[in-house]
């Protein structure tokens, strides 16, 4: 199927140097997307534009938002053109993420017990996320990171992990909401596809149950409240899992040191597992870390996991995999430069124009600079500024090679059909149960609306990810 079979101007390609996942270099639509393009042009599919508008509006009115600032109300930009990935390709991702989850979990166990890691001590103990209170503590089944979200890029040949998120990774409900909207308004676009079910909340429930020492644990989801950026996700997940969504004031430490939820006029109920979607847990529930360390409550994820998603630690993950698992890494990661090592700092400075500069404590694209994406006229002063900063504060940065990653088609309009190519990344989630990590078939595909940065907090949009058997 050639793109010439589509209406004229239906596809607007500008990023011709990047690998396009939907259309090959001869402008032939790739196998994964062929049926989708047939579906979208089906003459029996009426009022596609209105249906897409209804889906957008419904999601907006139902509170599908990501608000960077507390008083904002920003709809999550959705695209109903899915990212379509063949099962064979996803299997590599799945295996690679499981391997990474295992290695990172063993690393955390090592950090908080034996302390014989292969990473320099000052990187670990100097990390703002290292939590000395956890030394000597082992959670049930030795699992620290029940929930793990890995960000990946594809270059047409292989997937690269560009970031590990081990504290409170978010975004798992976004593809679910898009799928819900598609089912309601645009189900015809799925015709001819056998999409693997994506039910991450089931894995999450399982991992939460496994984290508790109690047989039938009472479980809750702790949110930072309706003004928080990811409240939509917290509410959506709590409904799917049928567990209470609680806020800071709902929980407190009892005289016996347990955590209880307050029920006005009735009393209290002991809480056994908290899926915490807040970072500073003792700010929200004073005494929560102590209750956790005393074995009175299980936390998903454990406190202190941030030390393993520190950007400087990330640069060591391939070595951690070899060290703890005696295996070669299944997934690649871009070459990183750790400025705390003099030779690497020197190499980074020589090559800085081709690198991505990341703040060590940054997240969601914030604190990330890609000099190559800046206009040539402004690049010189910017590079000089970066060189100065990384030399003065090498502990605060990580530099990575800039990858030429893939694009895919995103909707500009369904009627008339206009699509354009956008850079896209993929967040895949892993849930660590007593049987090992589980990776649900799918994930959050985020596309850049401008430039290359795809994160929601930097204005990126979201897509569903279909895992299909071709």
């Amino acid at each position: 199927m050639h793109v010439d079979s589509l209406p004229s101007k239906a596809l607007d390609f500008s990023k011709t140097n990047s690998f396009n996942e939907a259309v090959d270099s001869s402008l032939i639509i790739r196998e994964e997307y062929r049926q989708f393009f047939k579906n979208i042009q089906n003459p029996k599919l009426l009022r596609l534009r209105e249906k897409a508008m209804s889906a957008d509006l419904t999601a907006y009115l139902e509170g599908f938002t990501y608000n960077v600032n507390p008083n904002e109300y920003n709809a999550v930009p959705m695209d109903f053109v899915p990212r379509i990935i063949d099962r064979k390709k996803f299997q590599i991702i799945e295996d690679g993420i499981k391997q990474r989850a295992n290695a990172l979990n063993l690393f955390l166990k090592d950090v908080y017990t034996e302390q014989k890691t292969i990473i320099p001590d000052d990187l670990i103990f100097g990390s703002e996320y290292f939590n000395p209170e956890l030394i000597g503590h082992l959670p049930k089944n030795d699992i620290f990171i029940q929930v793990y979200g890995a960000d990946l890029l594809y270059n047409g040949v292989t997937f690269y992990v560009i970031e590990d998120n081990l504290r409170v990774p978010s975004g798992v409900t976004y593809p679910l909401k898009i799928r819900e909207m598609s089912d309601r308004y645009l189900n015809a676009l799925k015709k001819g596809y056998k999409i693997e079910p994506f039910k991450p909340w089931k894995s999450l429930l399982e991992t939460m149950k496994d984290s508790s020492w109690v047989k039938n644990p009472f479980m809750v989801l702790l949110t930072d409240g309706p003004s928080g950026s990811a409240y939509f996700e917290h509410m959506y997940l709590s409904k799917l899992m049928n567990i209470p969504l609680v806020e800071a004031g709902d929980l407190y430490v009892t005289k016996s040191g347990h955590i209880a939820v307050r029920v006005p006029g009735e009393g209290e109920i002991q809480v056994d597992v908290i899926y915490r979607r807040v970072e500073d847990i003792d700010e929200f529930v004073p005494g929560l870390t102590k209750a956790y360390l005393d074995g009175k409550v299980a936390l998903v994820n454990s406190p202190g996991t941030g030390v393993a998603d520190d950007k400087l630690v990330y640069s060591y993950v391939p070595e951690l995999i070899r060290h703890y698992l005696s295996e070669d890494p299944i997934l690649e990661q871009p070459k990183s430069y750790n400025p705390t090592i003099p030779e690497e700092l020197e190499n980074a400075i020589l090559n800085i124009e081709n690198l991505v500069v990341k703040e060590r404590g940054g997240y969601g694209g914030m604190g990330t600079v890609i000099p190559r994406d800046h206009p040539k006229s402004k690049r010189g002063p910017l590079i000089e500024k970066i060189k100065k900063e990384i030399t003065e504060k090498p502990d605060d940065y990580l530099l990575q090679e800039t990858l030429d990653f893939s694009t895919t088609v995103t909707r500009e309009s369904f009627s008339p059909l206009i699509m354009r190519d956008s850079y896209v990344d993929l967040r895949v989630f892993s849930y660590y149960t007593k049987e090992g990590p589980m990776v649900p078939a799918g994930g959050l595909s985020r596309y850049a609306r401008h430039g290359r940065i795809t994160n929601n907090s930097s204005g990126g949009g979201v897509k569903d990810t279909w895992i299909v058997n071709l």
Partner: protein
Amino acid sequence: MSHINKKNLILPSNLYKVYWLGRYVERVDSVSRALLSSLYSLKQLKSEEPLMALADSLGIEFTKHEKFIEDILHGDIPSSILYSVRHMRTNAIGLGIERLVRESNILVIAVEERPRLNEIDEVIKHANDIIAAINNFGRVINEEIAPPKISEEKMRQQTRHQQQ
């Protein structure tokens, strides 16, 4: 500690949201009606006094009536209608009742409309639209949260059945 039914818990945070949701609904309703009545006075009697009294009661400085109307409709101050409906929406979102979220968003969109402030009829229409929307929101709250209405006659029968 475990005798309480763990499903459908009424948590303190939810009670707090219901309380504030109700307060904001009342505030939007009362401020909109007071504004409407003052606008009629301005239109028919050419008197700014009711608007000035309203400004005084809300702690808003009155300079020109157009500025005051803009402040009370859309100002970033706790007494503005937009401020109240946005906070009402936050509480509705917090409760997670889908229909309330939807309707509160429709209300926010209605309030965000910008009438021409020097066209008094346009502002009156806008205030009327807000009152209609808040009435509709009250109806939705009734349908979603309120217990079913039972007639007085039925209630009297129930009293007899209590067998005191």
